[in-house]
């Protein structure tokens, strides 16, 4: 159940990032470091957080939007699962 839910989150996030957020040919994979490998800027991060909140019907507190939770799509999906279960 958890792994299925995680894969669904990963798929949604990758589709959003690769098809909506970046129209310029940038391709992001599940383990890519969004900050160092992709160089995601602060505006893109804000847009992604907005997408996550509406897509997964979650509210993320500013204090939770940290490097630790948003380093890669894989890490984000774990963080979202922990939010959903809490």
């Amino acid at each position, binding site marked *: 159940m958890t792994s299925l839910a995680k894969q669904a989150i990963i798929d949604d996030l990758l589709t959003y990032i690769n098809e909506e957020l970046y*129209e*310029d*040919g*940038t391709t992001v994979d599940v383990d890519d470091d969004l*900050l*160092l490998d992709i*160089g*995601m*800027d*602060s*505006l893109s*991060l*804000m*847009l992604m*957080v*907005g997408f996550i*909140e509406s897509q997964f019907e979650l509210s993320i*507190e*500013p*204090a*939770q*939007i*940290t*490097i*630790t939770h*948003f380093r890669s799509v894989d890490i984000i999906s774990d963080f979202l699962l922990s939010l959903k279960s809490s």
Partner: protein
Amino acid sequence: MPFLIHQYLEHHGRNQVDAEAAVCLDDTLSYGQLDHKANQLSTVLLTHLVKKGDRVGIYLDKCIDMPVAIYGILKSGAAYVPLDPSAPIQRLSEIINDCGIQVVISGNSKAKKLAQLKSQGHQSLLTIGPDNRFNLDANIDWDHVYTTQPDLSLSPHIIESDLAYIIYTSGSTGKPKGIMHTHHSCLSYSRWAATEYQLNVTDRLGNHSPLHFDISIFDWFAGVVAGCCTIIIPDEYTKFPASYAQLISESHMTVLFTVPFALIQLSLRGAMEQHNMNKLRWVIFGGEPFPIKHLAAIMAQLPNAAFDNMYGPAEVNGCTHFTIKHLEARAQTIPIGPINQISNALIVDENDQAVDVDSIGELLVRTPSMMQGYWGRAELNESAFYYYKPFSGLDNHYAQRYYRTGDLVSCSSNGDMWFIGRKDRQIKIRGYRVELDEIEAQLVSNDLVEEAAVFSVKFDDEPLQIHAKVTLKSACENATKLILVALKQCLPSYAMPAKLTVVEFFPRTTSGKIDRTYLTKLAIEQTVDIVSPKTKP
């Protein structure tokens, strides 16, 4: 008194050998260690044929090796040239070719891109930094540098008018331009700033700005003039306000010079109430106007800090500042302050005649912290300066040289100046200078594009955005994506349009030019429907 930048490092390296000079997360360098490592790098550079006056690139993500790279290059007599770590290869290549860089200081995180650079026409580029496991041709790793015995007998004779660094910025013709600063111009600004903000050995300066952004001059040189510790804020922290706030608190930062955009993010999303930032005594900002609503909010969140608006193009460094004592309830904007003690200002009309008090004109600045000129750009160097001749018969060589900022200001009777706008189409995106004409030039150089119009759009309190519209030479499927992919190869990420649209024709003014004013108005009307909901988290 020291007359070279690195002489301040050497002074502190002798007199406060164990005091912290730089910190990057868990890595620390004392003044003694930094001076020693800079001597090691300088020795390596000089034994590998770097000569006084050469240009050496620094291509590093923020890390503890950065101050070693800066000071090692300066000690070798070369000028350092920051290369934006997030810039596309094509842009890096242009800069490397433009000022003839043959050596680049770098690190492991850039090894892949360096290999690309070397395979695309820069085979002979000597790289210093990445581990040998990356198998880069012509490479020396940091281990080699840090086991080298410093040989000070190799040090060249350097004088204060020698070049210290070249910072590249957006150029309206589509080609980035290199702003050349000497030890003298850099130190004139750094000494002024260290005095003006009463920096001292107990201060801990936050280094927010990347090295290719001129605000970093304050962090690396005013800080070392005063013997402060510079806290390097890694790039990823600048993108996460809550992590940023935690770092400010845990590093006991006392001075932070940054851009309004970063402070707005801190205020809105930094969860600042969860962190003790009482040690912060100066919050200095510059690079772009600060919306009053957000400024008031962060001032209320940091009641112990003094807030200061510093102004100055990279060509002259900071030359005015205004410390905000209190914000008027109905204030719409804040002044950039009076011209500083080491500079002169003229405000002139289009005929270079001085304008009256409260009238708008272009700000011209004469200061010892002014650049030497633009690297290899004779035409630009002709037009960038105004020569004031107090006596008739003087030629330009003896006249007073003022830099034409292109900024329109007005000056109140008390000497405070107010920023009004630009004479040209230069804008600031998160503090970065962007020439809209450069983006247009890049778009038009694309084989698919017939004509292009690039303009900025501001919607309420949202950050400024760049929008682009193009007409095509002939119909093409996926044109938007193809054009964006090509554009990304030559522009830094902050200069990429937030929106690019293919149109069939452009609205025209009566003189036949593309009507960019109308396009901007139209975009703002459409932004209400398209962009706003998406950008609101």
